[in-house]
């Protein structure tokens, strides 16, 4: 659904999306990286389970919520990709780890 302009340069930042390796471009937001990887939806809502994806790309719609490095409900359009980043799509409400140690 989205293709990269050639002058954008190489996509050489290695991240994982739902455990699968994916290459992102340095400077991309997580939302842009997911859209570039062909994922239009990034979560299902806690209210009805409907699928949602990035909508405004400027941090005001809160539809692009994903779990980043174990931290849930992060706005993907406001976080830049980083090598080794673990991006996970969300299902329903944020899962906070109540049993045992909370993640960093």
């Amino acid at each position, binding site marked *: 659904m*989205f293709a990269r302009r050639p002058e954008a340069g190489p996509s050489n930042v290695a991240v994982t999306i739902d455990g699968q390796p994916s290459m992102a471009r340095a400077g991309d937001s997580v939302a842009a990286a997911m859209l570039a990887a062909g994922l239009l939806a990034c979560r299902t*809502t806690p209210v009805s389970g409907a699928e949602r994806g990035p909508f*405004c790309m400027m941090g005001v719609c*809160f539809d692009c919520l994903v779990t980043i490095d174990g931290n849930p409900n992060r706005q993907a359009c406001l976080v830049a990709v980083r090598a080794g980043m673990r991006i996970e799509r969300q299902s329903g409400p944020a899962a906070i780890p109540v049993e045992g140690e909370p993640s960093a």
Partner: protein
Amino acid sequence: MTIDERYDVAVVGAGAAGLAAASECARAGVATLLLDEQPSPGGQIYRSITTTPLADRRVLGSDYWYGEALVREFERAGAAYAPRSTVWAVTPEGGGFEAGVSSDGAARLVAVKRVILATGALERPFPIPGWTLPGVMMAGAAQILLKSSGLLPRGRIVLAGSGPLLYLLAAQLVRTDTRIERLLDTTPPARWRVAARHAFAFAVSPYLAKGLGLLREARRAARIVEHVEHLEALGDRRLSRVRYMAKGRSEEIIADLLLLHQGVVPNINLASAIGCAQRWDASQLAFIPVVDEWGASSVPGVSIAGDGAGIAGARAAEARGRLAGLHAACALGRLDPAERDRRARTSRSELARQARGRAFIDTLYRPAEPLRLPQGDTIVCRCEEITARQILDTVKLGCIGPNQMKSFLRCGMGPCQGRFCGLTVTELIAKARGVPPAEVGYYRLRFPVKPVTLGEIAALPQTEASVQAVARLAKSED
């Protein structure tokens, strides 16, 4: 980046207005902090201007690249810049203000004497059936993907709505050889006649040549359907078709991406939560903060500049930013009023120039009522998934305003804090009750205006009084 504990002025937002305001303050010797939610300056209009991969300047256009000069000016002026820093609260403290800032996962309080809000605008809600489907996005989102990441939409792309940003996006896509399936223009037919009243002003304004040029470009590669009245996004789990009605005929086309836009409105959440008075503007169909000719709001010490004080475009935003910055510097004693006025002259005439023709644009591109006021099962509040029917049923129950509505239905209680539903809810209630939107009012907004973690709040300073108010060790529980 280390943020100090105190500054003279905090500027919130690094778009045209914020950059200009911070530059004027810093140049006048004011200790200035520019707080930017984004990782690099430019706001939305000049988004990613220091990092965009689109080096060929013809793609984004000269209006965009003008912003480069603003950033260079800011970099030279001597203000402190805090990227990736979200302001979630501004509260009065010790004669000045305390800004709650969340930066890289940690919250802190910054003490300042004055605040300039330059939080800009956001796209007006566009509540059509199916607008929550993946594959439906705002047109501004596509523009951001283009500017920041060099990403182009592919497949069957439909643009829909009305307003300069839509045509600008169409032109930019055309310049990158991106095929647009349809541009569905929802500007109603009668509107040209109404707008013509302001046509002379428009003709001598900076907008005319620009506007006509964009339309010509867009027409070259996109099929434009005019006077589109009804719009629906259809699909099972993703957008797959767009249905629309034009000139009495219904059409349904296959679509992979639907990009919506019907204008921008001020982002008032922070100003409103601070307590700045707002007024309903019937021509912009939005709530606008009440400000004077220097941008001073109803809260002493808080100024509002740029599109956040009323939509007028990037050059006007820059002018108002300069005026707010000069006003702050004068109020802090760094400039005498005569010097402030002298430095303000160019901005004042630029503002006048930009204002000419604004009425034409506002009238022409006033979004059509059926596309502002949904019916039935169309979702109004995206976060809490509240429909138009639910809202109207609740008005029938006696619910007279958006705050009661919020407590009855949870609409407006989600993380976006009403940014994508507030205007729709106010107008739906107004129409159902038969009273003007000004009488209905808007959501009462509170801090935090952006989410901050409980852990960040927990790390903020406590006092003996606050501990006593909560733990109440000496008193008995009741």
